């Protein structure tokens, strides 16, 4: 059902947790199926220095969360904005068709966190 990469990220998820006083926090939920994903960003200059996640969801949801945190770590905000749902799924060697909406959550949560960062940043 799931690729080895998905199972690996599900079993040993990277960057689980939260960041206190994060520069950006994004939370998205799939209202219908009840899944929730939250991503925390720690930004220095323009670089994403640290990232953490918390997810309530299936194997694919956990794996895509974990993968997206790996993908953005050390990247600039600009670069992070380029990450798409498809790219996350591809980095995991694909997801079963019924699970494609889980990868939507991961990229969406990241983009929400960046939006939050921009808002806080502009205020500061």
């Amino acid at each position: 059902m799931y690729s080895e990469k998905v199972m690996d990220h599900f079993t040993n998820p990277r960057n689980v947790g939260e960041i206190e006083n994060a520069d950006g926090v994004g939370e998205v939920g799939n209202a219908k199926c009840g899944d929730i994903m939250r991503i925390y960003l720690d930004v220095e200059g323009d670089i994403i220095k640290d990232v953490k996640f918390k997810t309530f969801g299936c194997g694919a949801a956990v794996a895509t969360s974990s993968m997206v945190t790996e993908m953005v770590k050390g990247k600039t905000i600009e670069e992070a904005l380029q990450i798409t749902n498809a790219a996350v799924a591809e980095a995991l060697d694909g997801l079963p068709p019924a699970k494609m909406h889980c990868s939507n959550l991961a990229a969406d949560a990241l983009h929400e966190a960046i939006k939050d960062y921009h808002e806080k940043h502009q205020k500061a």
Partner: protein
Amino acid sequence: MRRVYLDHSATTPVDPEVAKLMMIYYTEQYGNPSSVHSFGRETKAALENARDSVAKLLGAEPSEITFTSGGTEADNLAILGAAEAQSKKGKHIITSAVEHHAVLEACEFLAKNGYELTVVPVDEEGLISVAEVEKAIRPDTILISIMHANNEVGTIQPIAEIGKLAREKGIIFHVDAVQSFGKIPINVKSMNVDLMTVSSHKIYGPKGVGALFIRRGVRVVPRIYGGGQEKKRRSGTENTPGIIGFGKACDLAAERMEAEGIRQGQLRDKLLAGIMEKIDHVKLNGPRGENRLPGNLNVSIQFVEGEALLLSLDMMGIAVSSGSACTSGSLDPSHVLLAMGLTHEIAHGSLRFSFGHQNTEEDVDYVLEQLPKIVDRLRMMSPLYDKVKHGQCSHAQAQ
């Protein structure tokens, strides 16, 4: 790694005795039972023996048993076949909100084709009330289809009472007994059942075999036409090895039913007690006691998602199932749990453990050793559990 199979409601292994018997009919006594020669006659005799075995476990006559390719086909034959046979009399059908998809989808098909459907609700334990069924009956009601025991939460419905009601009103009564057959006593006569579905692969018989009990005198329009096998009710070369295996599985079930019911009930209770003790925020789904199949346990573990639990248990060799939406591939979690009034979130974190003959106390101990660790790990990741710890979560207080 230790492998613990706790998904016997999904399917069971074939009993070694059953498998051994089937082998003979695959490789030696392989004749077509319709054939006149000795190869055909010997399988024909064994086929009729199997019919006796199924009938006996139902309290039916052998002539009232029609073999099918499984529970799903039998459900379809019962519902679509009985509806068509009676379409001149009326077009109203009653079923419940917690039926198996084989019943619900067949009913939905009828609803799209000129029939009217009333779906009676269940209470928070998944129980149907006889009063609700009675309320739903109309002059044009031709069929009531209610399951005996639920496949997800094990709730046992008041079949005899509904049967009495249906009989009084002259309405055909179909019962999907796939989960109860061979596990708890059944008698189609005393229960006043007209049509009853059973399946082989839930009772240590082979997959791809089932049967429909059709009470003498009840008419069902066939769904499969051809050589006229099964007294024209279901054409197609009979799956003799499968049917003979099913018959053997019925004989074994009859012998073991009582002792296994007690034994599995105890294992189940031990597992439930252990989970409640070791894990907080757990909800039992379905009833306790007499109204529940002895081998079934269903719990919701809050703040974690069912598929994630299931996969984590699987990595430790433990096989269970879940009513989570993520598992089913649909957007909604189990229709059974929702019908019982569970919120999407709670239904999402449900796990079903279903016991079988081979399960032991050691299996239960192993689950109780692994499950709490898994729940801990997943809750650490869960943004919902977070809130509970910080006292912000209304769900927790609601429990």
